[in-house]
């Protein structure tokens, strides 16, 4: 059963190796002549305004929270989707009720303007 996961393992190893390799090659091959200008923070060629790390607007939190909640919904969909043909009409209705309840929250968020990005 573990052999099903070989592609994921290959992907993990390859991506890690590639990232390490790129950083390593850059450190080994790249010429290094640091000057004040090169080491100062870069912001599209302009003098940076304020610190690089500033507080993000609360909108990001809201989007992440909505994503998390619909992610949990997806997890409920998964076991149903595996066998939904066998479950028949009753299973379909059950899932529609489940989604309809969450749709109320989606419409609420939409009407509240939580999905708007100015």
């Amino acid at each position, binding site marked *: *059963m*573990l052999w099903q*996961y070989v592609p994921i393992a290959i992907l993990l190893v390859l991506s890690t190796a590639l990232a390490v390799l790129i950083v390593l090659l850059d450190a080994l091959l790249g010429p290094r002549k640091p000057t004040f200008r090169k080491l100062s923070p870069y912001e599209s060629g302009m003098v940076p305004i*304020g*610190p690089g*790390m*500033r*507080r*993000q607007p*609360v909108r*990001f*939190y*809201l989007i*992440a*929270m*909505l*994503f*998390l*909640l619909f*992610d*949990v*919904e*997806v*997890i*409920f969909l*998964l*076991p*149903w*989707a*595996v*066998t*939904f043909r*066998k*479950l028949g009409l*009753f*299973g379909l209705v*059950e*899932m529609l*009720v*489940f*989604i309809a*309840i*969450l749709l*109320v*929250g*989606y419409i*609420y*968020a939409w*009407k*509240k*303007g*939580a999905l*708007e990005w*100015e």
Partner: protein
Amino acid sequence: MVTTFVFVVAAAVLLVAALIAVLKNNLVHAAMGLVVSLFGTAVLFVLLEAYFLAVAQVVIYVGAIAILIVFSIMLTRRVGAQWGNQTNPTWPFALLAAGVLTVLFALMVRGWNPDQALPAAEAVPGDVTARLGAALVNPGGYVVPFEVASVLLLAALIGAVYVAWGGRKAEKSTQR
């Protein structure tokens, strides 16, 4: 043994990542360590043949919770604040408690007689995920908790929107 090898590698990665998550002063690095340790837990679930749990772990914890934690760090840190020491000053007591627990676990494992092992749990026939799906919508199964979970998610959704967005009215959508 492939299983043992995968377990050792996953457990080692998990432990190192968990230590990074606990000990790093840089909160963003700690969050990254947490993500890796959560992924290691998913690998352990796969080794235990709990495939649905593994998928849930990756989709919810590695996918969504990690993003939420990183966003929370970016939201709450004050501009120009120093990196604080995130280690709790009572850590020696925690170490003591963990040490006592480790000794107790070691004694328990040593006292366990393999000859008197419990009967092995019966293997669940068929596809576990499919059985879970059937149980979720079966009237004799978990259909009520399933629908109640939907209501719980709805409450969390409305609560999140209200807490984060409650002050403003829907003026943005009416202006257009």
